Structure formats: structure tokens, C-alpha cells
């Protein structure tokens, strides 16, 4: 890999990170919000190092550089022909480095979407924390709830506080594999999209909207089993659905859904 291409690759990778973290919200499709400052710093550092490298490479003489500095040859191969020459083969960057162009260009021009129904339909339901303490529910109607909270209330709250309550939840549509039903789902992760888990609540009473549609759903608990135990299904009888804009950060299971 020639030296100017190395510099271009560093700058492009840095620009990709800056584009995803600083100029747009793209990075939230892949990592947590908390990563953003680190990504911006990395992007800026890469751009700086790439530019500095490009400038310094021009000032450093290329041919007899190794007489003064550790300056690489333009061709990474020649070092092996002269093994006794001292170690000036920094430019012998293996071809695998070309792969770095893929994420850089992908971030800049062709960023893949956030994980959605495809992943959710193939994932296990996320384990909801056990042994939670349940406070009395607020009196608001309809009551906004997260999918995780709803599941925990249905399956663990011995007080059966959700019985008869009108509940409003948001998420995207994941069609069930069989039977034509559908789930309201959220994908959440702790570090990056590679460790994603999904929370699903089964919906009854309305036909499924297309997969990945974001909805706000209002309804009541779909009876079954004994409410407050593991036998109760995390399911909702839907009374009303409203389309909503996909949130910027889709990977949360939080209440206030504010598209910005």
C-alpha cells in the first residue's frame, strides 16, 4: 500500500467516524450514545494524523529517507529482498488494511439501518429482571409503559396493578412466524448492536402493519393464565394504534419517545 493511500485511508476512516458521530446521528444505529465523544475524538485524531502524515511524507525525501529517518519505501516488497538493510519497512502494510476502506466508505455513503424486525424475529425474548419491587401505578389514562415494564408487571406483580388498565406502549412491528399475529418489539443492547436482545409483547385484535413500522399502541392486558405469575402472557388487546416517526435512538426501551 502506497504511502499516500495510507494517509487517505486514515483520513477517510476518521471522516467516517466524524460523519457518524458528529455531523449525524448515524452512530446510534450501531453503538450507545455514551460512545459518541470517544468516536468524535478518535475521528478527529485519525484525520489529524492522516493529514500530518500526508504533509510530512511530502517533506521527507522518499528515496533516501532511510538514511535519515525511518521513512518507508514506496514499495513494501523490497525490504525482503534486502533483509540486511535496517528496518525501514513501515510501509509494508499488509493488504488486509484495504478492508478498512469498507467501514469508512460504508459510514460515509451507505450506512446500513438500525437492527429491526429481522433480528427481533430470530432472537429470544430478553430475560426480564426478577425480584423487582413494584410501586403503585400512576393514575394516568392511557398509562405509558415500556415493553419491559409491562412484561415484568404482567408476569411478576402479585398486586395485579395492570388489570383493567389502558396502557400505551411504543415499538416497531415484528410479524410472528406463524398464525399471522404480530409483536410490538424493541431491540436493546448494552455495548453495540452485536450484543442486541429483543423485548416483545404479543398484540391481539388488529392486523399486523408492515414489519419495522413504528407504532404507538393503546390497549389492555390480554387475559390468560394467572396475572402476576409466569403463566400470564405478555400480550395486549389492542384498541388503537398510531403510526409514529422512528426514534433517533431506536435501541432503548424508554418512555418519552421524542423523534428529533
Amino acid at each position, binding site marked *: 500500500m502506497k504511502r499516500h493511500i495510507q494517509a487517505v485511508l486514515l483520513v477517510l476512516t476518521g471522516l467516517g467516524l466524524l460523519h457518524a458521530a458528529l455531523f449525524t446521528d448515524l452512530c446510534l444505529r*450501531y*453503538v450507545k450514545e455514551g460512545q459518541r465523544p470517544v468516536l468524535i475524538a478518535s475521528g478527529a485524531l485519525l484525520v489529524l494524523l492522516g493529514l500530518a502524515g500526508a504533509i510530512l511524507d511530502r517533506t521527507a525525501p522518499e528515496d533516501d529517507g532511510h538514511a535519515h529517518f525511518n521513512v518507508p519505501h514506496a514499495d513494501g516488497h523490497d525490504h525482503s529482498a534486502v*533483509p540486511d538493510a535496517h528496518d525501514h519497512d513501515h510501509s509494508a502494510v*499488509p493488504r488486509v488494511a484495504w478492508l478498512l476502506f469498507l467501514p469508512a466508505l460504508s459510514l460515509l455513503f451507505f450506512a446500513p*439501518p438500525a437492527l429491526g424486525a429481522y*433480528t427481533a424475529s430470530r432472537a429470544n425474548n430478553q*430475560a426480564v429482571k426478577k425480584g423487582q419491587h413494584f410501586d403503585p401505578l400512576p393514575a394516568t389514562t392511557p398509562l405509558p409503559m415500556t415493553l419491559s415494564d409491562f412484561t415484568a408487571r404482567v408476569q411478576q406483580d402479585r398486586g395485579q396493578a395492570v388489570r383493567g388498565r389502558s396502557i400505551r406502549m411504543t415499538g416497531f412491528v415484528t410479524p410472528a412466524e406463524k398464525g399471522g399475529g404480530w409483536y410490538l418489539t424493541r431491540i436493546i443492547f448494552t455495548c*453495540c448492536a452485536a450484543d442486541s436482545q429483543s423485548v416483545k409483547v404479543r398484540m391481539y385484535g388488529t392486523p399486523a402493519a408492515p414489519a419495522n413500522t413504528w407504532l404507538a399502541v393503546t390497549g389492555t392486558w390480554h387475559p390468560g393464565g394467572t396475572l402476576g405469575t409466569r403463566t400470564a402472557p405478555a400480550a395486549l388487546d389492542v384498541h388503537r394504534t398510531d403510526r409514529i416517526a422512528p426514534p433517533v435512538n431506536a435501541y432503548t426501551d424508554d418512555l418519552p419517545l421524542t423523534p428529533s
Partner: protein
Amino acid sequence: MYKADEVVAVAEETTLLAPSCSQERRTTVRSRAIGVLAAAGIAAVLALTGVGWLNGPAVAAWRTVCLAITVQALPFLLLGTVLSGAINAFVPADLFTRVLPRRPALAVPVAGMAGAILPGCECASVPVAGSLIRRGVTPAAAFAFLLSAPAINPIVLTATAVAFPGNPAMVAARLLASLVTAAVMGWLWLWLGREDWLRPTARHTGHRPGHSRWQEFRLGFRHDFLQAGGFLVLGAMAAATFNVAVPSSVLDAFSGSPWMSVLFLAGLAVLLAVCSEADAFVAASLTGFSPTARLAFMVVGPMVDLKLIALQAGTFGRAFALRFSTATTAVAVITSVLIGGALL
């Protein structure tokens, strides 16, 4: 050097040290041919199918996971390569030999415990370990550091404590099992390891008199970052393939038998390549499995996984990476079973 020559021909990594000129030329011609073929293949596929399939659900999910692993790891890789470049150019050559015990057998556990000070995940530790070896640290000690650093640093232990609330034994077991595995692997290297498995690391000699330190830092960093970055992307692609191809509902099938579940989760840690800061949460979500199996997942994960194997192959050579990863997996599983059995 032609452009096509350089397209993703990983298998054709430079043959090491002084092949004859004709060999050199043959290798170059062969890799050039492979590059041309690969480029032509990709072009043909794109021409025939268009770019629409890139947005199909499975492919889009693969690209997302692949990019997520890369984006998540790049800052740590940057930290690691900047550190390694700085160690190379600015740290006096005899610092490490002065700080570490003279006897390698003692240096190994000390280096293992020193892993606690490198905050971050496993991507940072590979280049740092590489530069330690170049600075004259005995490889056994550097490997102990390489293995322990991503597993026992405060960030990762805190994450483990958060993921397993009310279960401090899990944190202790993870710390202990990771340290023991790292030390055992260091001693194993002293006993069985052979220097010629390691790629000759002639390209860095550290600071040499009469040379600009900044220039050395810049070039060393650029080389390390580009090389490790390429291997990171390769590893991320492999991990994303498993992540997307194997639905997690398959997991439950293995949770029944205690032995199978330990081996299965150890294998899963290798294939999934979850960052060590996040693996505790993944382990906590695998509720069907025994605590020992989940401990094995968290001990193996930071030490061996697809992207790490790729990174190690790039830094230390393939001959080393395969042997080392296999041995580490075996030692880590045994240690997890013993310590998990005692503590959990």
C-alpha cells in the same frame, strides 16, 4: 504495485524474510492474479444483481452488526496502537526490564496483574503486547498481560458487577479465573513456546539515536493501526456472519447438559466476539445456562474470539495465533470449571 494487486488478498500476506527474488516475484504475480479475480468477481456479482440485495433484511442486519463491531472497537484499537507507538518511540528501552522481575517465571504473574491498568477491551491489548515484546519484555510476560488486560480491568469488572447484581462471587470468580488462565498461559509459553512461531518483529526497534522520535511514533502508529484495523474488519465480518446466521433461539437446545453447556458457551464466546465490556450482560441474559457455563463465556470471550484471532494473526503471525488461541481456550475452560465449581 498495481491497484488490483492490493485488493483483499489476505491469504497472500507477505512471505517472511528473504525469499529469493524469483519466489518474491511469483508470490507477487500470484497475489496480483487473486486480487484481479476477486475484484472481477465482486464487480460481476454487483453488475448481475444490482445493489438492492445489500438492503435485504439479512444482509442489512449483517452489515449493521459488522459495522457496529468495527465502530465500537475502533477507538480502543486507536488507543492501543497510539500506546504501542508511544511505548516504541518514547519509553526507554530498559524500563520494562527494570520494572518486571528478572526471572520470567515471576514476571508472568506480575505482568498478568499489570493488565488491570489498561482500561478498555481486547482490541487495545494486542498492539500493546506486540510493542512490549519488541521492547524486550519476555514474550511469556507480554502474553499474560495480553490475556488478562481485557478481562480484569476496572471497567470490565464493574460491568460484571452491574450485570450480576447481588452476586459478587461471579465478579471474584471472573477475576480469579482470568488471572489464573493468563498466568498459566504465560508459564505454558515458557515451557513449550518456540520463538520461531512468532513473526519476526524487525520493523520496530524502538527509538534509535539520531532519529526523530515523532517520526518513529508516526510511522509506527500508522503501520500498526492500518494493519490491526484491517484484521479487525476481517474479524468483525466473521463474527457478524455467525451473529446473523445462527439465531439465538438455537442456544436453548444446549442448556440442558452441564458439560455441553460449558463447552457450548465457550465456543459461542469465540464466535460472537462480543466486546469484553459487554459480555457480562450477554452472559447474564443466557439465563438457561449454569453459572459455571456463563463464567466460561466471560473468561474465554476476552481472551479468544474471531476478531482477536485475526488481530493476533496480524501482529504475531498465523502460526502463533492458531496454537495460542487453541491452548488458551482449553486452559480457560478448565480454569473456569475448577474455579466456577469452587466459588459458584
